[in-house]
């Protein structure tokens, strides 16, 4: 075997003076970078992914992971990844895979939008001392409501409300399956969702029995592989989601690599141990909006009419597609932008297909309003929500709620190294290796995730207070309170946002 002509991305280094040979780095590295050489720790730096597990667990701070200074000659056109991928493809004939959302420097519209605030002419509100409402209901809303007088003379709602999902704040966790992430990572999400009064989503990998106690905070997913789907599963959560596409890999299916399919995952998915779990690109019973309607109602019939969400990747024609989805009977449209994360996607797909979520939210919200059907479904926006500010901007653009996944994983130790597809995650998140998953104590990390959600909750309230409004409902679709910085007329028009200064 010849040495790869793609040089290692990172150099793992040990300060031999500081090293006490405790071998914790060897134990902690899931990638096999370190080994014991009899009298010192040996380093195979080509395996290093800079996840920093070893760095954090080195008691002497002897480890340093540096970007390899030996790079290909700098070239503004032929980037490092172009050369590296070509060399690896020449060596293997394969498709370079990647995890995480795209890290390429496309324009980030969230960073070109600023939120309004009150000064003098309208009072801001102090959320520390005044009530601030973040509660959000997802589902169809009636186009009009009727009331009637009850026997006690009080007014009562006469209109029968379609089923609603109640959230304490407009943030939920994006779907990540048992298989793509460890059961412990799913438990962290479930525990945090329960504590925070929000929802987690099983992804397409069935519902492990350990998650049954959290069923009031779970959305179950049906996707093209139909893994783990049976009547118990469909009825286990508060809603069912049909996954058509994912922002990181629009238009293609999923392969959960065999390395991540041990017995327990295989059993949940009803496939042989060690095979790749294949989720076909399309769902072969859905080739049209009419077919989608058929599956939506097949699920509603099987669940006594629970809300059904339809998740699609944000693509060029997303507004028309979303309109079709709403007309097909979906209660929720879940839009996933091209920055959305993934456990495994060909990098060529991740980096070059789809559109950003900011454009998609504005386009879909506009279209549904123009057609007079915006009340027929809620919009969940996902795909690169990095902070409560991104969430607030997404909601102001027209989303009912946002979904986060990468941010949640970061609370569990993730450093966005992007190697989720290998199944070697040293933090025990995107792996099924028992010695690695055991590191992720659900109770410990659930607390951290709960902290994050509470922190974002406070931040959202501060933003609302500064805006002088006391309910998230008043921010929803309120693009008047956004301004664009450095955006051209056409983009401002698409976003329905004025430039700063106007």
């Amino acid at each position: 075997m010849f040495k790869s002509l793609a040089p290692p991305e990172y150099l793992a280094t040990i300060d031999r003076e500081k090293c006490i040979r405790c071998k914790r780095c060897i134990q902690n590295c899931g990638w096999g970078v370190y080994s014991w050489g009899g009298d010192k720790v040996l380093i195979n730096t080509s395996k290093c992914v800079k996840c920093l597990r070893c760095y954090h667990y080195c008691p002497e701070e002897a480890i340093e992971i540096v970007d390899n200074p030996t790079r290909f000659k700098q070239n503004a056109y032929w980037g490092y990844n172009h050369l590296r991928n070509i060399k690896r493809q020449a060596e293997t004939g394969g498709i370079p895979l990647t995890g995480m959302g795209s890290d390429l420097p496309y324009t980030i519209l969230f960073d070109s939008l600023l939120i309004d605030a009150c000064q003098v002419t309208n009072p801001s509100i102090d959320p520390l001392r005044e009530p601030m409402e973040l509660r959000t209901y997802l589902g169809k809303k009636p186009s009009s409501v009727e009331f009637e007088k009850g026997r006690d003379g009080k007014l009562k709602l006469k209109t029968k409300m379609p089923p609603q999902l109640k959230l304490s704040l407009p943030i939920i966790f994006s779907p990540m399956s048992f298989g793509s992430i460890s059961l412990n990572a799913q438990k962290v999400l479930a525990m945090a969702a329960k504590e925070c009064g929000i929802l987690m989503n099983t992804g397409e990998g069935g519902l492990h029995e350990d998650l049954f106690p959290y069923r009031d905070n779970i959305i179950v997913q049906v996707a093209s592989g139909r893994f783990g789907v049976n009547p118990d599963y469909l009825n286990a959560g508060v809603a069912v989601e049909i996954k058509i596409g994912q922002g990181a890999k629009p238009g293609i299916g999923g392969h959960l690599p065999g390395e991540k399919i041990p017995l327990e995952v295989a059993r949940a998915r009803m496939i042989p141990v060690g095979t790749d779990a294949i989720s076909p690109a399309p769902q072969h019973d859905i080739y049209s909006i009419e077919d989608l309607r058929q599956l939506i109602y097949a699920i509603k019939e099987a669940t006594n009419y629970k809300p059904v969400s339809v998740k699609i990747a944000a693509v060029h024609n997303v507004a028309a597609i979303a309109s079709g989805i709403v007309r097909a009977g979906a209660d929720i449209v879940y839009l996933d932008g091209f920055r959305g994360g993934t456990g495994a996607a060909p990098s060529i797909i991740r980096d070059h297909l789809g559109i950003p979520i900011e454009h998609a939210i504005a386009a879909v919200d506009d279209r549904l309003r123009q057609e007079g059907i915006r009340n027929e479904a809620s919009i969940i926006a996902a795909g690169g929500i990095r902070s409560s500010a991104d969430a607030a901007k997404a909601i102001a653009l027209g989303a009912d709620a946002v979904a986060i996944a990468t941010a949640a994983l970061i609370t569990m130790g993730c450093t966005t190294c992007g190697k989720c597809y290998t199944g070697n995650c040293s933090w025990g998140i995107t792996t099924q290796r028992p010695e690695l998953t055991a590191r992720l104590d659900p109770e410990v990390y659930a607390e951290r995730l709960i902290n994050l959600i509470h922190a974002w909750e406070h931040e959202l309230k501060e933003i609302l207070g500064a805006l002088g409004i006391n309910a998230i409902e008043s921010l929803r679709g309120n693009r008047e309170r956004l301004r664009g910085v450095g955006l051209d007329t056409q983009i401002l028009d698409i976003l329905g946002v004025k430039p700063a200064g106007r």
Partner: protein
Amino acid sequence: MLEINAGGMYYRDLNQKIRDAVNSGEKDITVRNVNGQYYIGDGLRGKSTITVEGVPGNDLAAFMDGPTLVIRANAQDNISNTMNTGKVVIHGNAGDVLGYGMRGGKLHILGDVGYRVGIHMKGVKKQAPTIIVGGTAGDFFGEYMAGGVLILLGLNNDGRPIVGDYLGTGMHGGVIYVRGEVDKNNCGAEVGILDVDDEDVKVLKESLTEYCKDMGLSLDEVMKKGFKKLIPVSLRPYGNLYAY
């Protein structure tokens, strides 16, 4: 024995009626004058037998978990979609995408079927689905198959091909039995064609005894012609697709 007249009834009302009857313990139900109503038996549980007279609509027995449905006519698309357990018997032809993601139970069809039948079927030792097609099948029969048993008999095919192209494409588990010869050119690259052994004959006889009883056919007649067995050549047909 309960009779339901489905004539002119909306599917949602019809299915509610059937569900109520099953939940009240009715073991033998006949639904008359069915004319294209969707979702009959959708998500239905229990051990009842439901006889359908007339042509049922799409997604018959989707997500079904236990009951037996007997259709005395042709049927349409998406039958036994992600079905868990139970049995569907169709005394006629049926359409496309039957048994998609099926997880268990039996689907017996007397006549021909369309495209993408038995795709992405799953199975573990204790629970595995079986689909038996008496006539011919279209393209992509058993695509992405991950478990279970597909049997294609090609009875009365009048010289037409038994099966279309891309047979078993992407197969990585389970087994397909085809009565007669299989042309390698019709198969997906992931499929190996073998002769049946004694163990296979046992499996075939067991499944086909029940099928022949359902359909009023002679087992000896069906077993007269030889079978070919199709299995995946690799558990990971796409294992070498990726660079790193």
